[in-house]
């Protein structure tokens, strides 16, 4: 279990930034789910619950999801763009944990195993920071050493035609061995793969093939163009082997068939 020396209720975003900048062992607490699983020593745990970041707002471009929005909040939102989130998080442990885990903590931490992050990337999310400003999620995920900053919200585009997601797991509530999300919007596709075990990344070649209606070639592109690794869940060659099948299953589940 992580240890916390002091608990601070933040009253403004500026206060949060100041604490993060002045104390390298200070940390913002989202749902706190991961505290149990580590031994981190946190000098100041910053509670951001009172900063109004637990709302999902409709915007002109789509939706702005505050950092303290939980997976449960996403699941309960109507609309086809949230169908993707429902598919992505439904096997994450249980409704109880999903009522606690926050979008902000998951995206900020860039967890490789995260199903949500993969779906966010396929949706074309942008991430909004207090200091770094707004950037595409794939840019944030590919940063070597992001500065200590405060993730405020994630923005996702509105209307989508297809949100496909599939993950392969050993058991229902376990981490995914591999997860794949594919989203079609305005006729264009984005395909993201996570649990590689590295962080989610896009496969442009797969997206192009889908735009041409070539599902088999799109699936093959995942294995050919992406890098995979080995961890306790699966070996690199296994992940490479299953990646095409996981994409095909994701598409079949939402009625996208083809050669």
């Amino acid at each position, binding site marked *: 279990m992580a240890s916390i020396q002091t608990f601070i209720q933040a009253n403004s975003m500026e206060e949060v930034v100041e604490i993060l900048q002045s104390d390298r062992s200070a940390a913002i607490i989202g749902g706190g789910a991961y505290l149990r699983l580590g031994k981190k020593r*946190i000098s100041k745990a910053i*509670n951001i619950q009172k900063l109004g970041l637990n709302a999902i707002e409709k915007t002109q471009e789509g939706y702005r999801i505050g950092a303290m929005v939980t997976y449960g909040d996403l699941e309960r939102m109507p609309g086809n763009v949230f169908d993707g989130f429902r598919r992505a998080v439904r096997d994450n*442990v249980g*409704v109880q944990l999903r009522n606690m885990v926050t979008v902000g903590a998951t995206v900020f931490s860039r967890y490789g195993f995260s199903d949500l992050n993969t779906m966010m990337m396929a949706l074309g999310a942008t991430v909004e920071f207090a200091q770094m400003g707004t950037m595409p999620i794939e840019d944030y995920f590919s940063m070597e050493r992001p500065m200590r900053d405060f993730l405020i919200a994630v923005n996702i585009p509105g209307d989508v035609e297809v949100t496909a997601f599939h993950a392969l797991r050993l058991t229902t509530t376990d981490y995914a061995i591999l997860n794949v999300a594919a989203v079609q919007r305005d006729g264009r596709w984005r395909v993201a793969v996570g649990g590689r075990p590295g962080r989610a990344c896009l496969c442009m070649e797969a997206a192009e093939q889908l735009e041409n209606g070539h599902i088999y070639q799109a699936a093959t592109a995942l294995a050919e163009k992406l890098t995979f690794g080995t961890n306790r869940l699966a070996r690199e060659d296994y992940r490479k082997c299953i990646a095409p099948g996981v994409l095909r299953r994701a598409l079949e589940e939402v009625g996208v068939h083809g050669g």
Partner: protein
Amino acid sequence: MEVNLIINKKPRTVHIRPDETLIETLRGLGLNGVKQGCDTGSCGVCTVHMDGKAILSCTQLTAMAEGRGITTIEGVQQQAEQIGQYLVAEGVEQCGYCSPGTVMSILYLESCIADPSDDDILHYLNGNLCRCSGYEGQLRAIRTYLEAKRNESDR
């Protein structure tokens, strides 16, 4: 540090460590119906409600629950006994350790969905692990309980 909670509808002020979890606080107050299982947010035996939503008390920092309403199995005794009868009737109760958490999840399901399907039941109970029962009896018990409640309200 001091934190104000409303536990089973009663306001309480508790003195806690900054990294104290809600299960430690609740069991420290004698609410031992909240069971300690995996302690890592995976098994669901520690399920309580916070402002009406099911959460895992082993993973919830008490400090983050300031001002919130917490409901434990002790706070829903009548409903728990009613559900318990259905679990017993289906032979689900063996060691009984998962039961408080399971009951809290069943009550949460009931509060969220008026007429849940089997898929809904499985979805809401997915986070409650049971080493004894194999889950079939629990599903039957929950179906029977929900049907009985529907018939009650139809009268």
